[in-house]
């Protein structure tokens, strides 16, 4: 078990012949991901890394059962690629591409919502069900199977924390990157609900950052959760009004502050780490305590 993707997930790679698409296809295959087809308009009928390439998602779906798609397509064409995957009936679509216009994001997410499909991203590192399926760009070696569910807005910060968990022998059930843009497919609550239901997940790590109010919304749901949540919020030292890389990471008009988020999460019962490398220790403590109680 895991959430959203698993050992049996048949994965399509859109843009499989591009530089990024090809490199990460190799990495995903090396991780054990069940990639069964790729798309590249005009290159239908060829193969790459032993994977059959099709001209369109529909063409791939006519020949294979596809469960999920990961998109490595330049920003200007990414909306079309995501709509294509959704229209073909694929229910999990990972949009790695960054710099997609926000109006395009609104349109593709509205369409996904209508079709009851899950969009991970845009501007995400992707999703890893550790030891089973990786869709996206995280480095393979840091993701080992275990019982910690991780959900984050930011990529490398997640590698940092997951890498440290792994270094301490703490594996992960699934690691989900929601994406760094202002409009993305998933909310923390969407993912927390899945972790709450997933029997394999025992502890959840939430990696947030300043800006927006999704951490505050998450806090509301955490109150109802039976599983322990450990959180880290990046941007404590960021000055207000400056946008820190992500479209979301900005403190505007006194909203989305570090203190507000930490307070909401702590009140909801989450353990909040002050620095990223403190997370594994807190998780370990919870796991040790729970196993000693059993």
């Amino acid at each position: 078990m895991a959430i959203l993707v698993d050992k049996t997930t048949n994965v399509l790679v859109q843009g499989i012949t591009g530089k990024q698409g090809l490199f990460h296809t190799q990495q995903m295959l090396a991780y054990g991901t069940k990639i069964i087809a790729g798309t590249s308009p005009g290159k239908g009928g060829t193969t790459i890394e032993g994977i059959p390439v099709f001209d369109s998602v529909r063409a791939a779906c006519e020949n294979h059962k596809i469960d999920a798609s990961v998109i490595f397509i330049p920003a200007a064409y990414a909306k079309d690629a995501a709509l294509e995957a959704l229209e073909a009936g694929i229910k999990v679509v990972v949009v790695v591409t960054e710099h997609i216009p926000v109006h395009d994001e609104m349109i593709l997410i509205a369409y996904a919502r209508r079709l009851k499909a899950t969009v991970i991203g845009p501007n995400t590192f992707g999703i890893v069900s550790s030891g089973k399926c990786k869709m996206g760009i995280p480095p393979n070696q840091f993701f080992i199977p275990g019982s910690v569910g991780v959900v984050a807005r930011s990529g490398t910060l997640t590698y940092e924390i997951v890498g440290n968990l792994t270094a301490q022998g703490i594996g992960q059930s699934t690691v989900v990157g929601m994406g760094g843009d202002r409009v993305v497919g998933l909310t923390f609550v969407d993912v927390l609900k899945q972790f709450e239901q997933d029997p394999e997940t025992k502890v959840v790590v939430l990696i947030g950052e300043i800006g927006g109010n999704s951490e505050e919304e998450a806090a509301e749901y955490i109150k109802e959760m039976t599983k322990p949540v450990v959180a880290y919020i990046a941007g404590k030292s960021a000055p207000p009004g400056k946008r820190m890389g992500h479209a979301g990471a900005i403190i505007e008009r006194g909203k989305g502050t570090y203190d507000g988020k930490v307070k909401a999460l702590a009140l909801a019962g989450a353990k909040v780490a002050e620095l990223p490398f403190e997370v594994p220790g807190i998780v370990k403590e919870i796991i040790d305590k729970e196993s000693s109680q059993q």
Partner: protein
Amino acid sequence: MKMFEYMGKDIFAEFGLPIPKGRMVTTSDGAALAAEEIGGPVVIKSQVLSGKRGKVGGIKFVDHSEAAKAAAQELFGMTIQDLPVEILLVEEKLQIDKELYLAITIDSATKQPVLIASVHGGMDIEEVADEHIIKKYIDIELGMQNFIACDVVRRMNIPLNSSRGKELVKIMDRLYKLFIQKDAELVEINPLVISGDRVIAADSKITIDDEALYRQQDLPHVEERTKAEKAAHDLGLSFVELDGDIGVMANGAGITMGTLDTLSYYGGRPANFLDAGGGTGVEGTAKALELILSRNPRSIIINIFGGITRCDDVASAFASIKKSRNIPVPVVIRLVGTNQEAGRAILKDVGIEAYDFMQDAIKKAVELAGGN
């Protein structure tokens, strides 16, 4: 990209949104001429990308063209929040019966456009009490429909059959078209003035999505970034100047923020935020270092956790720079992730031992900067 008020009003006019008579000028003689053309009392408004110009005297009302010239001269001498006043907008002075607020922006939580309206316009919307703000989320697949605008007008307590009610419905429809067609993040009219039978956009605030500028080529270009920030942006780097003395570079917004947080925790003060993003090559890395050095730091921390970014690429880039130019301050590097062994070997060749853990590397950088 934020647009100047006068640019926003040009776009308003393009979409049939009512604006005051007036035009943009860049000289005080031009201001006098514009005032004469308009006739009667005018308002002269500094064109700067700051919302606070009114409070610091950046807007002047005059009754005739000679006075316009004098007022313009005065305004051209001002700086508003560090921004010099170089452009003025001269407009007819409106008779104001009522000031409304109207905006469309993007709501991250519901992932769709939201129309915001209030009958308490003219002040910062943040200062308006929640119960006086009307929010209407727009289904982006359905778009703006007549009934949506009508219902907002009803909630504003403006009669639907009145000429101002009908005018407002039209304005909402056109504002939404503009929002969609121009890839706007925000379109705001504050105040939207009721003046007799007319409803007029007395101000304009438009922010265009930077990521969509490639398909909005007919818009005028407005540069908000400092020179250094712009140079960084052009290379795909996200760079923000801060006021400490330790140069910071990391890859990814989150880990860069985490690096700053950790640096602060250990008593260091960052000189900058620099997110090198994914997959930066030699040129990008060289530029990144240059930007960091331009802040005259006492030490530099480079914190790389490679995903898309490959450690060997970063290391090669850094090594080639180190060979070709003098780096006058100590550099601490933390390097893990994709191809980390290769990367570390390359760094070793240029005499740098990469760190495993960010906290150790950051501690070292603070130490090397000599504390405060």
